[in-house]
């Protein structure tokens, strides 16, 4: 049942991606709408380095570092603006990243994309390697989950929540809010890069078309659907979104109507976002918090 | 009685700020509400103006119960509210500010006429009628806000701290203007920090303390009342419990 393995791997990778966004969006209250850029940086750096002959594991580590450094470089200026403007700044950053990937062909091969990205040495290429990759992705997701739970359940996470709720209060108690936010973004970027490398080495082919706004919307959907600011929310959200997307394949749709599937899916995704914002803004697993009266 | 506030309790969220406050304004009167900070003066005004609905008690205006009426509806009935601080539109010209102020007047002719008269009446702002209101000085802004009364000719104006942040000379100007407004047949309910000034122009005054009626009397009575001074500045309290309450 390779297909099921495939869907499970996808769901796990998306879980990691969603968890990384949740760290910023849910815990730190930073609406990063350009998160896909870090996913892309992870994927590209890892793929390029492994093409250049660097062992896959080393390439992956470099990719995480690259994503983290870029995150810090983006965060410091972008945090000058807040709220929806921060969202727009990051969104624009992601599009700029994609355009660079598309146009700097000497590096990224542009729209041709990078095919034949190798798997880690201990995982067989192709289908034979899928159970092993599933295991790998599972361990990666569990590791990410544990890491984020540790991070958010700690004094660090508590401070992030304080900052999210009331920046002035946090400052009055000596919290360096800029530093905390930068750290949250760096951690989120590293983990998004992590998801990106997992993706690149699994799917074995990446191109700029994989890192568009649509992807950001999908992962945003995973997070808000599952529940912002909770540990399980993004995981549940990612699994739901991936399985729903794949389940659509099994609907008995006559070939002539297949063309309507993707738009319908888009309508449903967009609709879910709107409905969640209106009816259950805290998602399927709401964070335990009361409205401030 | 033009306005009658009867034992209202009101506040935001948790604790009520006002407890069973009562006051009244007769036609033609200037009535001021004074009291130390946190006494709930502005809350009284907001309740009268319709920005806040009390949880108990009622407000009658011109013989009708208006406790649950919206702010716009009260405006239409001639009960006008001039809030404190940001009470003009800085990115509109002076003239446009007046036009918005006259929004409740039906009939273009009548509105234009009222605006013209107002601009004539206030040469200071009349001269600057095409400037953006953001370019006016603090006193001019307050005058512009007050001039709305001349346009709409309401029966009752509810004024929140008209002298806030103004230089003493301008305070006098504004207070003279408030007195002038009564000649139009307008009654005034006024909240002021500047108690002496406010009492000196008021027919009657109410002194609030911690959300309750404390004292009431004519302007001059209150001016001479030592109790008022003590409320503002503290002093030898009658007993400790009293000081704490």
């Amino acid at each position: 049942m390779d297909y099921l393995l495939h869907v499970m791997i996808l769901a796990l990778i998306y879980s990691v991606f969603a968890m990384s966004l949740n760290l910023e969006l849910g815990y730190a209250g930073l609406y990063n709408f350009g998160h896909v850029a870090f996913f892309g940086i992870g994927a590209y750096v890892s793929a390029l380095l492994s093409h250049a002959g660097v062992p896959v594991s080393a390439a992956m580590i470099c990719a995480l570092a690259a994503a983290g450094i870029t995150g810090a470089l983006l965060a410091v200026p972008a945090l000058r603006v807040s709220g929806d403007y921060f969202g727009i700044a990051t969104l624009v950053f992601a599009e700029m990243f994609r355009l660079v990937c598309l146009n700097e062909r000497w590096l990224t091969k542009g729209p041709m994309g990078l095919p034949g990205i190798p798997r880690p040495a201990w995982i067989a290429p192709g289908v034979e390697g899928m159970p092993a990759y599933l295991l790998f992705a599972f361990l990666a997701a569990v590791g990410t989950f544990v890491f984020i739970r540790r991070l958010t359940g700690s004094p660090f996470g508590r401070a992030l929540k304080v900052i999210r709720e009331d920046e002035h209060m946090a400052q009055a108690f000596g919290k360096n809010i800029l530093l905390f936010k930068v750290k949250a973004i760096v951690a989120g970027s590293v983990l998004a890069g992590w998801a990106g490398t997992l993706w690149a080495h699994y799917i074995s082919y990446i191109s700029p078309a994989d890192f568009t706004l649509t992807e950001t919307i999908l992962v945003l959907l995973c997070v808000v659907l599952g529940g912002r600011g909770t540990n399980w929310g993004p995981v549940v959200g990612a699994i739901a979104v991936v399985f729903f997307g794949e389940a659509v394949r099994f609907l008995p749709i006559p070939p002539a109507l297949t063309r309507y599937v993707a738009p319908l899916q888009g309508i449903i995704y967009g609709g879910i976002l709107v409905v969640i914002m209106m009816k259950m803004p805290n998602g399927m697993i709401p964070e335990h918090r009361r409205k401030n009266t | 009685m033009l306005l009658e506030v009867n034992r209202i309790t009101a506040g935001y969220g948790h604790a009520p700020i006002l407890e069973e406050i009562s006051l009244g304004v007769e036609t033609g009167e200037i009535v001021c509400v004074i009291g130390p900070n946190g006494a709930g003066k502005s809350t009284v005004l907001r309740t009268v103006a319709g920005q806040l609905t009390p949880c108990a008690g009622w407000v009658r205006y011109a013989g009708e119960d208006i406790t649950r009426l919206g702010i716009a509806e009260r405006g239409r009935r001639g009960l006008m509210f001039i809030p404190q601080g940001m009470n003009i539109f800085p990115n509109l010209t002076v003239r446009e500010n007046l036009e918005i102020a006259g929004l409740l007047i039906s009939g273009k002719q009548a509105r234009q006429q009222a605006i013209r008269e107002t601009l004539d009446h206030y040469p200071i702002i009349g001269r600057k009628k095409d400037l953006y209101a953001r370019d006016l000085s603090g006193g001019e802004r307050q005058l512009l806000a007050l001039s709305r009364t001349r346009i709409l000719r309401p029966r009752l104006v509810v004024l929140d701290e008209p002298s806030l942040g103004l230089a003493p000379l301008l305070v006098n100007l504004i207070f003279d203007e408030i007195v002038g407004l009564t000649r139009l047949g307008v009654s005034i309910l006024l909240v002021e920090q500047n108690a002496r000034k406010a009492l000196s122009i008021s027919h009657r005054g109410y002194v609030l303390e911690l959300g309750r009626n404390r004292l009431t009397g004519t302007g001059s009575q209150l001016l001479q009342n030592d109790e008022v001074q003590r409320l503002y500045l503290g002093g030898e309290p009658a007993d400790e419990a009293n000081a704490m309450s």
Partner: protein
Amino acid sequence: MLRIQNVTKAFGALMAVHGVSLEIGDTGVTGLVGPNGSGKSTLFHLITGFYRLDQGDIFFGPHSIGRLPPHEISRLGLIRSFQHTRPLPFMTVIDNLIAAAPGQTGELIWPLFLKPARVRREENNLHEKARGILRLLDLLPLADELAGRLSYGQQKLMELGRILMAGPRMILLDEPTAGINPTLIRRLVEVLHRLCEQGIQIFLIEHNMPLVAKLCQHVFVMDSGELIFSGTPKQAREEPRVIEAYLGRENHAA
């Protein structure tokens, strides 16, 4: 301890604070009074770094804090409250307190993973400390209640606890008794006295004049952004300029 030198802050044309200089020694409780809009809260914001100074400087002990960001000022032990309560309503009361503790190892990412034992130990200590403070404030039974469920007065007390948690040398309270009932005020006053005994300086904005008279050794009075008086509460009551600031000028009186 706190020395303010010729501090000025303008918002556009409005002079919120103009040329204020004052000094607070180790005198216990100091009050800051004045009518609405006289610049008291602005001065607090300036001291704690939330507003940037236009002119002048502020010293806290030996440090110049006039240009420091709020969190660094806070770390020097100068802790403030805000005019309205700002609980973290979704957190428990005890977590509200613990979150306020400065210099937690667990707030740094590497030690969090590399020295878990130390982080755990610190958490336990903070927990104990928070419980102690809650006991002092009579809030211990509410320790595990969500802060949002507390009454307004209880939240004010909890905020005081939060300030204590931060290990202050001096605390700035903006209207600590506004909107709370006499019983709680009494409790608050007790706590403030206890703090003074521990050598913590208190600087407060307060409108409840009798309370100011009772609590403060020294008061400053502000009007229209300027410091108009400095002395004991008793002196203040008799000072014409103070009366004028509160009640208005005599000259035009009817």
